């Protein structure tokens, strides 16, 4: 069963790249979102620190 599963009835050349690309998009979304949040937190922290040092 397993090798006919991987061959996807002869369409493996199209099915697996599609699934791979979809998963890549999912992964990119997650990674980009986390990176965006981290960057926002860092920028905010730096802005707060600067504001604190100004007012001090």
């Amino acid at each position: 069963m397993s090798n006919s599963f991987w061959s996807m009835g002869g369409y493996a050349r199209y099915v697996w790249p599609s699934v791979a690309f979809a998963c890549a998009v999912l992964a990119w979304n997650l990674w980009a979102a986390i990176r965006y949040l981290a960057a926002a937190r860092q920028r905010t922290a730096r802005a707060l620190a600067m504001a604190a040092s100004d007012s001090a």
Partner: protein
Amino acid sequence: MWTWFYRLASPPSVYRVAAALTPWFLTLAAIVIGCGLIAGLAIAPPDYQQGDAFRIIYVHAPSAWLSLFAYTTMAVAGGIALIWRIKMGHAVAAATAPIGASFTLAALVTGSLWGRPMWGTYWAWDPRLTSELILLFLYVGVMALRPAFEDPSRGDRAAALLSIVGVVNVPIIKYSVVWWNSLHQAATVAKLGRPSMPGSMLWPLLTMFLGFMLFYGAVLCIRLRGEVLNRERQAVWVREAIKSR
């Protein structure tokens, strides 16, 4: 009478709610997408006409649906923010845009890979894929307009207005592309539509839809927290939010 809505839409509560929901969305999405993929690729019977190539639908249809859903969400959030002047609407719209654009790209790539065996080429101007491509241009337009203004709040409002104009045009574009396609489509080519599917093929697809929506919720919550922080930098509550996880 709308006080609960305004309290819910206040930045600190949006930030807290998004932070709380993210883990739930993420784990649920992982489980549901996992099951959906296994079911779609292994359990569901092959299509009598397209054989196993039809399994690409399990990633193409949810992406196409999500790309449209995300655009509509962006337009509705932008509209709410523009009309009732709720800043968080702009944060949601700004967070949704890149997610929707990425899924539009996913729908385009998986769609052309799916079409390849049928059409003999990767791009045969199939009406559904063509309107998906134009939707991608609409996304790019909105995402290019937002940062073009120095004042972020003005960029938000301009992007919100453009997304509303865009969402009004999406059905017009879809219809005109279908009309245009019927004009030139002499040969009857198997369209990329969803053939009427027996239950054993359908439930994995619905599972994938649910999985993608949950995943969209998770990524939206994460990006939303970033957008809220960018817009509320001077607010007092931000200081604690930054320290805690």
